[in-house]
């Protein structure tokens, strides 16, 4: 039950982001659904006991979702990607890092700060992996296309 509420909250929160970025209608809902997929994958891999890994895999799932939708609906990839990735951005990490800092707890400050940085890094890593692979596939397809023609 609790999980369902959180999924609904993720979806509606993403709808809020879509409104903020002026997305309308079908595209708005589809982009928001990407956030739910990301969080579902995040939960699915909770057995790894390693949230950096979870963030990485969730980003990969979102990126694949965005690339597919962009091709189906002939829209730029960023539209789906930005909205769906936002629930994973470590807002909590930034806040707790700051809190440890002002409380003078330097050990925890460094630990939490590095953790936040690694989460951001794993998002970046996920984006890099998938979009590089997609670019590669596009190039190969283009290459085959041109050589066959000639």
């Amino acid at each position: 039950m609790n999980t369902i509420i959180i999924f609904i909250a993720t979806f509606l929160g993403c709808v809020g982001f879509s409104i903020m970025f002026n997305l309308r209608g079908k595209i708005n809902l589809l982009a928001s659904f990407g956030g739910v997929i990301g969080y579902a994958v995040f939960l699915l891999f909770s057995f790894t006991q390693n949230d950096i890994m979870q963030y990485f895999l969730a980003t990969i799932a979102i990126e694949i979702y965005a690339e597919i939708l962009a091709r189906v609906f002939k829209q730029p990839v960023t539209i789906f990607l930005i909205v769906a990735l936002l629930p994973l951005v470590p807002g909590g990490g930034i806040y707790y890092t700051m809190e440890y800092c002002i409380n003078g707890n330097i050990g925890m400050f460094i630990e939490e700060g590095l953790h936040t940085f690694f989460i951001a890094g794993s998002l970046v890593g996920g984006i890099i992996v998938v979009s590089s692979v997609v670019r590669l596939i596009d190039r190969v397809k283009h290459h085959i296309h041109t050589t066959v023609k000639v």
Partner: protein
Amino acid sequence: MTNDQLLEISTEIGLSLLENGAEIYRVEESISRILSAYGVVNADVFAVPTCIITTIVLKDGQTHTRMKRIMNRSTNLDIVSAMNNLSRELCKLKPEYDEAKKLVNQAKNRKRFSLPIQILGCVFIGSFFTIFFGGNFYDALVSLLCCVVLKFLLVVMDKFKTNMFFSYTVGSMAIAAIAFLFHYLGFSQNMDKVIIGSLMNLVPGVALTNSMRDIIAGDLVAGLTKFVEAIMIAVAIAVGTGVCVYLLKMFV
């Protein structure tokens, strides 16, 4: 279409894409595709987040250049999508200048959501992410109030063209103050969840995502610029909430 008109149309489309949060490679590619669709063989485009330079070389060796400076950027993905479709359409149909100009203006002036709906979006983000991060119903209500105040502040400061980082600092201060007040009054239990949820409005997700996509595409200058922007936003948020919470804790 004359060459100058062609330059104007293509650069205008690129400008609009860049202003509304498209990646650099999309801007450069759109401009050079339109130019080559209209038969310009030799064209160079250079775009960074603050400027676009387009140069075409004609068959007789003459060169034409147009440069556009970008003063304010925001994220409006609706216009990005419209401009992307428009540039495909121009490549396919190759309309004359007047027709193309009309289409560009149409795409540029697409309707935005009205202010009440924007506030609603802002409230959705704050309240539902408060629940997402583990807050309860009362926390979500406090977050709702935080978001309305935040949006109001952002709109007012945007009107007076305040520096983005400063307005983010002030916004996060307001959030922290309201969350602290209601926590102090005993209305909400989790002050941290309220603040984190409301801060999702300001978190640098767009800058981070776009900077990475730019770096992958090979636009290192643009990617680094946006990456620094993301770090600056994170620092601005942390400073705003940090200072506010620290001061309030000292006095209360």
